Each structure stands twice: as C-alpha cells, then as structure tokens.
C-alpha cells in the first residue's frame, strides 16, 4: 500500500442516477425490482440470516449497482439523497427483505470515503461492492457496552505494524466475515475518548479467534472475537491516530431513524391479531381495548416517524430527538409481545411456532423484542441523550 492514488477509482458499472425521478416513480421502480428479484424463500426470515443464505440477494443488488445507495456514484454507490434511500429501505422492509451482511456497505464504506486514504478506498471499496470482503464490527467489549469509550482492546505500534491485544463482543456475524473494523486504544494516557483509533484487520490474521455466542433466540449471530498479538500493517489505521472515536461517532447518520421505523411493531401487531383469532379472544372486550390502545400507539408512532421523514425530505439533518423514535418503537413492540404472551397461555412457552404455523409464534416474537431496547444504544442511554441534548437538563 505504498503508492497512494490521487484520483478516486470508479466502480466498473456506475449506477444510473435516480435522484431526478420523482419519489413515487422511484418507489415503483424499487418495488418492481424487489418483487422480481428477491428470493421468495427468504422473505420475512424469523432470524438474522448468515451470508450463505443472504448472499444471493447481496449479489443481486451488487449486480444492479444498488448495493450502496448512500455512497457517492464515483465510488460505485447510487449517490441517492437521504429521502430516496429511505424509500428504498421502506420498500425492502415492506417486502420482508432480509438484512444482508451489510457492515461493509453501511459502516466501513462511508467511513473510508470520508476518512480513508486513496489507497484504502482503492483497495477496500470495490471488494465490498463485489462481496469479496464481508465485514464485521468490533466496537463493544465485555466491560465496554453502554460506556463504549472505556474500551480496553489495545493497539501498540511496533515498527511498521500495529500489535493488537484484547477482546471484542457482539461482533455480529463474525463467523461470516473475513475482515473486522475495530476501535482500539492507542493512547492509555489520554482522556478516554481521545486515545482511540480505528483499525482494519483481516480475520485470518494469526491471533484472531472467533467464538459464536448463542443468544436467547438460540441463534449464533453474535460472536466474541479475541485478539492475541495480532499484527497488521500500520497502513491499516484509518484517518489519524487517536481520532477513531470522533470518526466513528460522526458516522451515526440518518440511519438512526430506522431504529425507530414502525415496521417491526406493525408486523408484531398483525401477528397479535392472528394469535387472538387463533386463541378465540379477538372479539373479547378486554382484548379489543388492549389491542386498540396498541393500534393507536402504532398509528401515532407512524405520525411521529413521518415528521422526521419529512425533515429528511426537506434536506434537514436529524437531531438528537430521533432517539424518541427508537425508545417508543422498541417499547411498543415489547408491549405488543407482552400481550401475546398474556393471551397465548401455555402456548406462549413453546419453542417452535404453534401448530407449525410461522404466523403464530408468540414466544419467538417476545424474545426477538428483547434486544431492541438494548442495541443501538440502550433506551436508558437514549433517555440520557434526550434529557441532556434535547431538553437541556443539567448534567
């Protein structure tokens, strides 16, 4: 990596510029593409899919030039406005498209485009777009969850190499990945946020060990990743030394709005109604009242979500108040699944869907609703953010 290039490198097939289309026309194009190309057997998967199961969709998107809606077109992205990206994601959600192994597209790509060297962009961006590099994220540690900045995985420069030691956790789909991006401490003396750097590490480097963690869904999407004297060339550091925290934080873009999308609660509410019909309480006055309260909460959540979408459409950025959506959505979804468990009786304790019907799986949805108030910043952290950054309450 000793010959940095001065020009950005084009993706071989630059995507068509779709920004000029009006929103409805664009939505129709996306809707049709999804309907014609999405593999029907992986619609609405009950669990996060591994690469072996979602790569067919990843590669379809790559082939179409639609894998990276937010990247500038000169890097092989679609260069879409935030509003149009939102439409794409809404259409994907609507159809029940699985999430892919998207850390390269969503996290590494934008970070390299903003902070990477020309050499890093030349090497890594095309391989994200081709699916050759599958990335995972090394942020959280056993003792650095909500307080991420207290992370202790350390990188020390020895000659031309960084030597990394430590442990990362919640490295989602790390068993699928061949690269990991991580935050590591590079200055122990500095204030905790100011001694952190951003590094790129191949998963096959000697000293990297991955151990899957079985979660409450009995699924192995999470992993622990250990680093034992792992050596990477010093060029694998992105941006400046000790600036990793600031870079990673700046990456929290408009995607935050999706943690507050009404889709998950809407899906759960439909399942609640099905379950009530199955149980035979759908017309029961007590159930109707509980169900109606949840419907109204969802309808008002949609209205609140829309006000943020409208801001994006007008080209305004999102403020810290977007945390409201995440809190309300995740807790609404949990309240819906609470009612499911309540009406299901003993069936609410079944490991598999009731009578093999995938629409009737209260226990599954109840468990799936647990992490939503934890990941992406726990709801307690989100409330701290609201209190301090939106309501201006004293620290």
């Amino acid at each position, binding site marked *: 990596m000793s010959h940095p290039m001065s020009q950005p490198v084009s993706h071989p097939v630059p995507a068509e510029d779709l920004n000029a289309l009006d929103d409805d026309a664009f939505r129709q194009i996306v809707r049709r593409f999804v309907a014609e190309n999405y593999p029907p057997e992986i619609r609405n998967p009950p669990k996060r899919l591994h690469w072996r199961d979602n790569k067919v969709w990843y590669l379809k998107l790559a082939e179409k030039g639609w894998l990276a809606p937010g990247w500038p077109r000169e890097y092989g992205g679609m260069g879409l406005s935030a509003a149009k990206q939102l439409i794409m994601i809404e259409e994907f959600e*609507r159809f029940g498209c699985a999430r892919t192994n998207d850390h390269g597209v969503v996290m590494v790509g934008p970070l390299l485009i903003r902070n990477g060297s020309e050499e890093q962009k030349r090497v890594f961006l095309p391989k994200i777009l081709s699916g050759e590099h599958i990335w995972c994220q090394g942020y959280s540690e056993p003792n650095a969850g909500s307080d991420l900045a207290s992370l202790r995985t350390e990188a020390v420069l020895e000659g031309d190499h960084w030597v990394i030691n430590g442990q990362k956790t919640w490295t989602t789909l790390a068993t699928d990945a061949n690269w990991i991006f991580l935050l590591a401490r590079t200055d122990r003396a500095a204030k905790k946020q100011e001694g952190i750097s951003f590094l790129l590490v191949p998963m096959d480097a000697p000293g990297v060990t991955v151990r899957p963690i079985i979660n409450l869904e009995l699924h192995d999407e999470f992993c622990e990743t250990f680093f034992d004297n792992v050596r990477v060339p010093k060029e694998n550091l992105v941006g400046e030394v000790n600036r990793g925290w600031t870079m990673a934080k700046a990456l929290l873009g408009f995607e935050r709005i999706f943690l507050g999308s009404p889709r998950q609660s*809407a899906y759960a509410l*439909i399942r609640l*109604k099905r379950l009530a019909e199955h149980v035979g309480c759908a017309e029961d006055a007590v159930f*109707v*009242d509980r*169900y*109606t*309260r949840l*419907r*109204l*909460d969802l*309808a*008002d*959540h949609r*209205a*609140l979500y*829309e*006000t943020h979408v409208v801001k994006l459409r007008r080209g305004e950025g999102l403020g810290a*108040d977007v945390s*409201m959506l995440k*809190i*309300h959505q995740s807790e609404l979804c949990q309240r819906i699944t609470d009612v499911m468990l309540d009406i299901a009786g003993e069936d609410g304790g079944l490991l598999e869907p009731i009578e093999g019907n995938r629409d009737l799986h209260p226990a599954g949805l109840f468990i799936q609703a647990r992490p939503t108030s934890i990941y992406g910043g726990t709801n*307690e952290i*989100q*409330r*701290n953010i*609201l*209190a*301090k950054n*939106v*309501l*201006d*309450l*004293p*620290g």
Partner: protein
Amino acid sequence: MTDRDAQAENIRLIRESAAAIAPRRGDFARIRALRFTHLGFDRAVWHEICAMGWVGLLLPEAHGGSAFGVAEYCALAEEFGAALAPEPLIPAVFAASFLRGDMLADHLTGKRLVLPAWQEKPGELPASHLTRIASGEVSGRKIFVPMANGADAFLVAAEGGLGLVDADGEGVSVVTAPTQDGGHFGTITFEDSPAEALPGDIAPALDVAALATAAYLLGLMDRVFAATLDYLRTREQFGRKIGSFQALQHRTADLKILLELTRASIASAAESLDASDDARTRAAAVSRAKARASDAALRMTREAIQIHGGIAYTDEFDIGLFLRKAMVVANQFGTSAWHRARYAAIAPESEE
C-alpha cells in the same frame, strides 16, 4: 407558494397574533381573577377575540369568515390552551358553522354569543337525541354546556333538526355547576321553548370541535412541560439541580415523547380533516388524536405535580391550574375511552 407553505404561513401569523390575547408567557393573574366568577370568562376579551375574526375562521369568506383550514384552527386552539384561556372559543366556532345572516353576523362580532347545547349523555358524541324540535318549539334537557351563563342563545341539537333558542326565552331554565378550572357547566332545560329551526348536521362539527379540544390540551401540555423543565433546571436539593437526577431525567424524557406523539397525532388528524371528505377517515383520525390528547394531558399534568413536589399542591402555585383545566377539558367532546371504542369500530385495520 404551495398550499402547504401558505398554511404554514397562516399558522405562523395566527400564533403571532394569538400572543396578545392568549400569551404563552407571563403570570396567570387574569385567569385567576376569572375563576369561580358568574361568567367565568371576560366579555372584553371575548370582543377582542371576535375582532380578530377567530370565531369565523373556518367559514367561507362569503359568510364573513377567513376560510382557514382545520390545521390553522388547531394552532389557534393550541395557543388558547397554552394560555389556559377560559373564553369559549371552541363552542363558539362550533355554533358559527350553523348560523346565517344577522344571527351569524351578531355572533361573529360578539354582540350575541351562541353556545351549542348538544349533549345528553356524559362522555360521548351523540348518535341520537331525546330532545325534540317540532312546530317551532323545543323540549328536552341538555347537559355540560361550558360557560352557559355567557350564552345569549343556545344552538340546540334535537331529534328533528337544529334549533336556535334565546337563553332568556320562554320555558328555558339554566342551572350551573362550577368546574375545577373555575368555569361552570350548564344544564339547560327546555319546555316548549320557541326555537328557530336551522339546517345542518352536527356530526362533522363535533369532530372538528373534538380535534380543536385535543389541540387545546396540546397547548396546555406544552406550557406545563416547559414550566416543569424550568423547575428541573433551577430547583436545587442535595446541593444539585434536581434536573441532574437520572430518575427525573428519564421521567422527563418519557413526557417529551408523550408530548411529541400528541403533537404528531393532532397534526396528522388536522391534515386528514383538511384533505379528506370521507366521514370514517375523518372520524377515525379525530378519535385517534382526541384519545391521545385526553390521556396525555392528564398524565402530563399529574407528572408535573409530582416533579414539582409539595409546592405544586398549593393553589397559589400555577401548576395546579393546568391539572384542573386538564381535568375539565380532557373529557369534553368524547372521553378517551369513547374515542378508542369508536376508533376500534371504524378505523380499517391495514395489513400494510
């Protein structure tokens, strides 16, 4: 300028002009002075309100109105709520949509105040009436008419149509009961009272009034929340600002979410009313927003009392004014339970 931009500009102007009559800042000396008086509101202020053209704001220009949409009306009602204004704007706007000619002109200028007497059962919008109108006479009983002592005439909803009845007309008796906010409800009994028959269907007007009531509650919530934030930022205990305590920060964050859900709900309902002629769509949107606002306003004011602590339990401190107002207004034009039930009955369950 798009329609939406024009509406946003109207709303800005309405809020600005409302500040003179229904201020968002300052003390509540005016409100306190009017509490538990015979009239319960201020005639002079009522004339100012009329002079602003607000009573006719929804009417077409040909009828002396401003032809504003429901979104503009909600903005005005919100400002009234933020000021805890006791003047009967919402009932008067309701009545204006059924009056014509001189009686409308007198109502709009404030010369004669017409208040609707539509309700016969607590907590619900009417499907039918026991009150009857026939051959120019009304007989029956209407309840919960706010500020009834201020009425020069009543717009009576009855089986057989609408009737306009003079407040001091033959066979009309008004009995009032004071309400927590310092106003009063009137129970009006009509015995063969002379009535002028009027055309019209009150159902759509009731929905608009229910939504305006939700907006009034939103304004009330906004103001009491701002007061609570101020208190959290200044009050000290244990050597710290109490707003630095996480237990209170998290409660306050939840109130902020509640406030913004209410705002979004009302805004989208107003948009539905301005955009759709479909009665079910309109009614469902109104029920959603009113159910939200009624529950939210009561929760917000209860929490405001708790966060302020002992001082809030004194009548001298203003937070109690918000609680008492919410207690009275939250159940007007349909309780949250009634609106939830109506929503369940009419809103289509989308599978989207």
